[in-house]
């Protein structure tokens, strides 16, 4: 078994206290292990009606008629609504994602088509799975019975699945108000790429396709809602990653004051981006609770999750690299096509992430990238762990290997020759980042990442083995891939700290957890910032009533934003505590220290005061009585942290694989990941995040694919067809890390929730192609399932076992 990084701190200690940097065991676990989790479907709402959605069986059709008479008469049915019944609701989902940042608009003038998704389809359906009607019944069994009695007549229309086809002049329009099926378009240039290509020693030109796969959290989506008959307030339980955004959108749709809506995301069974956007079901369930005057619950089933919750990853890259004879990159050109599915849900987020992460850790003087997002009759695609980066890294890192083959240079060496050096930090790429500012890598040591990956993967040993030749038709290959990831997306996150009369610290943050362990890591940060024991801190995340503002846990941003907000709030509360104690004790504040929850003289003489003694006596002696309506002197602080720019994480992965020439099966012999996410708060949790991300990447690289037929019918709608890897498919990983603290925030932290998932597709494709190099195979898309590998071998003229 391989071992992860040592847990001994080898890094600057954030906050300077005893808790950060340590693998503190999670406070979340005990409750979850006893079966006391509180996921949406665990919240008992006596008398709740249950919702079930009727979904389109057609990829593209006109709705001729809907008859709900029989469904309404079915046992236990409370209501049946169609598009016409809810067309008056002003739903506008995912406004923040659809907004183009001003800097980006000014510099690049991108095109963004807004295609509002109806809460329920009215005249047309645009993908299989689109909600057409909702049934509310006494329970889910009866609701699903009644779904079969809703009589919808459809007139099928021509179907577009292939994004290239959808851009053809004669393609049918998905949205009548648009000029074509373009959802977004943006282009960017640095230097003089045409001249660089014209003068290059070598040019490689390839088409690579990142295939469609999905987040697939084990807990499907769920929403419930209840109007409190006493207060009239609407409470929504949603397993969302962005509760405040759900609050704003729900209030808008239902015409309520946002402060009258409380959204709670307590335990969430994995999100990975799929729960980071807003969906129509999320609006309709609270609406139903208000109209029916009783609680309403909806829980998605797995088939719905696979086919109708957001998809991801499908991109085509027509990429060209220009290099000199030594392999130094002169220019990169890429024409990117992103399959958006039927609606533009998140605008430039994924496409522009692909643009501004294409160059990765490499120095490229001349750049020419354009990206087009295309609307098709497939389920809408939105960010999924990595959000445009795994796709673009797949293209770039595959192209680097093709260039290495063209020039006869060892792929790892080609990478080494092109890396930005640590002495060049902060490094400006010449591109614009996704917030509209000049793109800058804040810190990092890319050559060290690669050196470690090469050494750990034993490149020389693998090459020696390859020279010995294949054994029993099993071919060894090695692949590398590197990435950078701009993390810590703004605009802000909120932390509120209150010292309770008991002396306990109450920390509320805007960013909820979907398994990342915020209750532990944020408590570590708060404990050090204030000077209290770790177990004196209680953390609430994911309840809009606990913080006035918040964004959420998406885009590898929670630790950077909520962590630094927590740190700052903690430092401010610490100052207040010491000042209050100084007044109480009648000593100067600068003579006092607060450690482990006890305030005492720095001289280690004189009286000591516990936090409980200080906070438990109100009003504090010497403290002014609160003036009317103001509470400025309490032991509490609310801080909004607005990051000044991105904290850029980075990594180098390597894989050694063995491909069975006869069966097409790929076995991972050794998987190495060296990552740099700056200062680490909890190494155990960090390692878990990286490992989990890599496992999802391996799934996408080798097994998972959301497949559509040419008729727009999804063919992988169950876990029998959509292959999520099990323990047997995911090997132990060989992890290592370096620490380049981010200068962009007080803690020096960078995000790492997504990083693991970014490189595996590329690294495994590179490794498989390396293994099959004797046959001249080029890998242009995944997943590298046994059947696809055998297809590649057959195309290369190799006999393989019968299908």
């Amino acid at each position, binding site marked *: 078994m391989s071992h992860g990084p040592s847990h001994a701190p080898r890094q600057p200690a954030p906050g300077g206290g005893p808790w950060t940097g340590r693998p503190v065991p999670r406070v979340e676990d*005990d409750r979850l292990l006893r079966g006391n*989790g509180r*996921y949406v479907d665990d919240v008992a709402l006596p008398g709740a009606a249950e919702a079930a959605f009727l979904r389109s069986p057609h990829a593209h059709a006109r709705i001729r008629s809907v008859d709900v008479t029989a469904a309404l008469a079915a046992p236990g049915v409370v209501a049946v609504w169609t598009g016409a019944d809810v067309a008056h609701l002003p739903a506008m989902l995912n406004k923040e994602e659809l907004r183009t940042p001003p800097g980006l608009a000014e510099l690049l003038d991108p095109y963004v088509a807004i295609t509002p998704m109806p809460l329920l389809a009215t005249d047309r359906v645009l993908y299989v799975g689109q909600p057409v009607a909702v049934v509310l019944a006494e329970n889910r069994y009866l609701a699903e019975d009644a779904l079969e009695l809703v009589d919808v007549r459809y007139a099928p229309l021509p179907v577009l699945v292939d994004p290239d086809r959808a851009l053809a002049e004669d393609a049918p329009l998905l949205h009548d108000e648009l000029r074509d099926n373009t959802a977004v378009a943006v282009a960017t240039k640095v230097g003089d790429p045409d001249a660089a290509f014209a003068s290059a020693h070598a040019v490689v030109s390839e088409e690579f396709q990142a295939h469609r796969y999905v987040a697939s959290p084990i807990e499907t989506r769920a929403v419930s809602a209840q109007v409190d008959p006493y207060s009239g307030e609407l409470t929504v339980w949603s397993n969302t990653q962005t509760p405040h955004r759900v609050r704003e959108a729900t209030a808008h749709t239902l015409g309520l004051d946002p402060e009258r809506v409380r959204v709670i995301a307590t335990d969430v*069974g994995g999100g990975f981006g799929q729960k980071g956007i807003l969906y129509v079901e999320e609006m309709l369930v609270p609406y139903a609770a208000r109209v029916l005057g009783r609680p309403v619950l909806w829980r998605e089933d797995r088939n719905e999750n696979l086919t109708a919750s957001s998809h991801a990853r499908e991109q085509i890259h027509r990429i060209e690299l220009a290099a000199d004879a030594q392999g130094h990159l002169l220019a990169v050109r890429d024409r990117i096509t992103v399959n958006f599915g039927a609606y533009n849900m998140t605008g430039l987020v994924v496409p522009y992430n692909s643009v501004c992460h294409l160059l990765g850790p490499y120095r490229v003087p001349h750049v020419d990238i354009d990206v087009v997002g295309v609307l098709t009759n497939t389920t809408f695609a939105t960010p999924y762990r990595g959000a445009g980066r795994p796709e673009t890294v797949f293209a770039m890192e595959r192209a680097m290997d093709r260039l290495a083959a063209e020039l006869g240079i060892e792929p790892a060496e080609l990478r080494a020759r092109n890396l930005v050096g640590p002495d060049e930090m902060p490094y400006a790429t010449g591109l614009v980042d996704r917030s509209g500012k000049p793109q800058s890598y804040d810190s990092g040591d890319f050559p060290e990442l690669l050196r470690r990956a090469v050494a750990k993967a034993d490149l020389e040993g693998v090459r020696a083995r390859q020279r010995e030749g294949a054994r029993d038709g099993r071919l060894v290959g090695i692949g590398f891939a590197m990435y950078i990831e701009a993390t810590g997306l703004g605009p802000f996150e909120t932390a509120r700290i209150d010292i309770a009369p008991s002396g306990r610290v109450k920390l509320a943050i805007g960013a909820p957890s979907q*398994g990342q362990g915020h209750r532990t890591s944020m408590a570590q940060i708060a404990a050090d910032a204030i000077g209290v024991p770790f177990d004196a801190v209680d953390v609430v995340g994911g309840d809009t009533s606990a913080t006035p503002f918040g964004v959420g846990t998406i885009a590898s941003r929670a630790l950077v934003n909520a962590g630094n907000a927590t740190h700052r709030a903690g430092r401010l509360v610490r100052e207040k505590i010491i000042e209050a104690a100084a007044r109480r004790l009648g000593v100067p504040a600068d003579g006092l220290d607060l450690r482990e929850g006890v305030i005492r003289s720095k001289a280690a003489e004189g009286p000591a005061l516990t936090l409980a003694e200080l906070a438990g006596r109100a009003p504090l002696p010497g403290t002014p009585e609160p003036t009317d309506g103001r509470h400025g002197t309490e032991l509490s602080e609310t801080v909004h942290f607005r990051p000044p720019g991105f904290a850029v994480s980075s990594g180098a992965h390597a894989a050694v694989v063995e491909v069975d020439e006869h069966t097409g099966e790929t076995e991972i012999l050794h998987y190495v990941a060296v990552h740099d996410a700056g200062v680490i708060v909890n190494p155990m949790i960090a390692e878990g995040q990286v490992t*989990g991300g890599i496992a999802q990447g391996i799934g996408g690289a080798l097994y998972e694919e959301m497949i559509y037929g040419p008729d727009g019918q999804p063919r992988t709608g169950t876990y029998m067809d959509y292959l999520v890897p*099990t323990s047997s498919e995911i090997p132990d990983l060989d992890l290592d890390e370096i620490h380049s603290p981010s200068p962009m925030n007080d803690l020096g932290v960078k995000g790492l929730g997504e990083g693991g998932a970014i490189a595996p597709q590329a690294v495994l494709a590179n490794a498989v192609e390396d293994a099959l190099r004797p046959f001249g195979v080029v890998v242009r898309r995944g997943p590298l399932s046994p059947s696809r590998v055998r297809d590649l071998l057959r195309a290369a003229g190799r006999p393989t076992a019968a299908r």
Partner: protein
Amino acid sequence: MTTDLATPDPAAATRAAAPPLAEPSGWHEIRLTVDGASVTAQVESRLLLSDFLRDRLGLTGTHVGCEHGVCGACTVLLDGEPARSCLTLAVQCEGAELRTVEGLAPGDAPLTPVQRAFHECHGMQCGFCTPGFVMTATALTEQPQRPDAADVADALSGHLCRCTGYRNIRRAVCQALDERFAGGPAGRGE
């Protein structure tokens, strides 16, 4: 007897027994043991065991991830054997002895070695798949002899986890087996 939760309120059972609406699949009375407590209930023919546990008995520790028997999140022990509660009908459990995650360490009782190992090895993140893994691992530790590595791998491959990448789950199960079979045959759990 374990928790009050496992014993439904008799009045509630009576209310459930009088169908409020025309249930197309018919009703049956079942008697079984859940986490050591005797339970008698009226259930519809088509009621899934997972829904019976969660919605009727309030035992929400058993999670439903796919409803078609692949992900393993809903695993409970049915007469000592791991079973998919989403593929089992409540009526099939007449006379059965069921164990759920709530029954492992009721109330404030110390965590079992399996539960503790998942905590100590960070074998969980979001916690949604965890009860299923824990129940299967519990069954492994209750075998008379230490299961060999192939048996352990086989048992774990019946569960999906999307968060952890499995390594720490394998470590947790190995640790629990080491503890249970200390001094036994040295079969590795991974």
